């Protein structure tokens, strides 16, 4: 379970997260929607400790992420994250991209790592691209590779940070399909997204972020059909 308790976070004088609290239970898919600059992506970075926080706390399976002495490297193997700019390692093949952390972080043998990675790459439909360098892949394929790379560590949680925002429209579908597949398999996911139809269809809950705060959180049906807050209604009106 991920527990976010009254988290605040500033970059210099700019407070981007102003006291956010939210829980995500195992097996849940929570979509986070909201305008650009509302603090959604920063929130994700805080969950796996890529960004420090100013106050409040975040617990992942009871472990406080930002406490001194927390082994962040160990914690991160449980929390996969996929970024907007897929961030492939350009000097490594698709297979090497996917096996690197398996071998160096989890200490798997090359054969074991290859087996796991190939399974994950086939899962996202890249079984025929193992020896290819990322530069030869489309954006959608690179993004699916990034998903496979994160999944190969067998994380308990997956965080998605606007993973389709940088893709050509015709490539968005293949990535969303991959995420649907994951959700249907019971993966716990926090999905920051601008894909409203996806959020509505796949999520158990939807959270609306604005100005560093969660203004409303509820079932997709409630958020999209009967939003309680005027800010939510205004945002949905602007994007739908």
């Amino acid at each position, binding site marked *: 379970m991920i527990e976010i308790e009254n988290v605040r976070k500033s970059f210099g004088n700019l407070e981007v997260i102003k006291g956010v609290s939210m829980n995500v239970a195992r097996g849940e898919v929570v979509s986070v929607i909201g305008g650009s600059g509302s603090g959604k992506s920063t929130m994700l*970075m805080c969950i*796996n400790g*890529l960004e420090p926080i100013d106050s409040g706390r975040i617990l992942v399976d009871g472990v406080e992420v930002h406490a001194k002495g927390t082994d962040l*490297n*160990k914690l*991160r*193997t449980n*929390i*996969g*994250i996929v*970024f907007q*700019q897929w*961030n492939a*390692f*350009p*000097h490594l093949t698709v297979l090497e991209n996917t096996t*690197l*952390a398996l071998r*160096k*972080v*989890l200490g798997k043998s090359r054969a074991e790592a290859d087996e796991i990675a190939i399974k994950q790459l086939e899962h996202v439909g890249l079984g025929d691209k193992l020896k290819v*360098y990322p*530069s030869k892949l489309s954006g959608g394929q690179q993004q699916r590779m*990034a998903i496979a*790379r*994160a999944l190969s*560590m067998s994380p308990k949680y997956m965080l998605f940070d606007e993973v389709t925002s940088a893709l050509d429209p015709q490539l968005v579908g293949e990535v969303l399909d991959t995420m649907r597949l994951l959700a249907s398999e019971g993966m716990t996911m926090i999905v920051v997204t601008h894909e409203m139809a996806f959020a509505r269809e796949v999520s158990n809950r939807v959270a609306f972020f604005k100005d560093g705060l969660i203004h409303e959180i509820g079932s997709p049906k409630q958020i999209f059909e009967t939003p309680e807050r005027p800010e939510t209604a205004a945002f949905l009106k602007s994007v739908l």
Partner: protein
Amino acid sequence: MLGTSVTWGDITFMMTGAGLTLAITFWAMLGGTLAGVVFGLIRAQSPWYVNYSMGTVLDVLRSVPLLIQFILFNSFQSILGWGMNPFVVGCVVLAAYTSAFCTEIVRGGILAVPITTRRAARSLGMNYWQDMTYIVLPLGTRVMLPSWIGLTLGVMKDTALVYAIGVIELLRSSQIIITRKPHEALVILAIAGLIYFLVSFPVSRLGAHLEKKWREND
């Protein structure tokens, strides 16, 4: 030979000098590169006061003419009774000089790796050193290589200045022959130039080859 009075003995003498040139280049590049990687890593992520003081020392090494550095260091070590031979002095001074340039090359290469790529590595549970070893240095090397090759070729020519502390490398050996056979100066200098070129050429080709190979994947 070639209708000149330059003998095989002269050529052999020059080749011996060329061997020293190569040896000094090798040790200077090895020492300078290792130190440059360490200093570059430090400079790429240190607080400003560390950076500032390191930068000052490196600036001194970079801006004081090499000839002066050779003579000063050689005099100091002799005053302090370290008893280093001129060859070692040459290697040490040139390595320090090289390290100053290499530090900036390494720092630039590290900073050229996008923070987002490094975040992806860290997000997979890699620690700082794993990120450095498997992501940052391999990627940074592509940025560093052209400058590093240029540095190597430059250092090879800078070795000529060790004549000032009495090491007889390629250029000095050529000058010795010229002193004996002034009328053959052009031939001897042409031979020396050819030797420099023959040594440098493979290095620059190797650099070009690696660049091309890496570009194919990018």
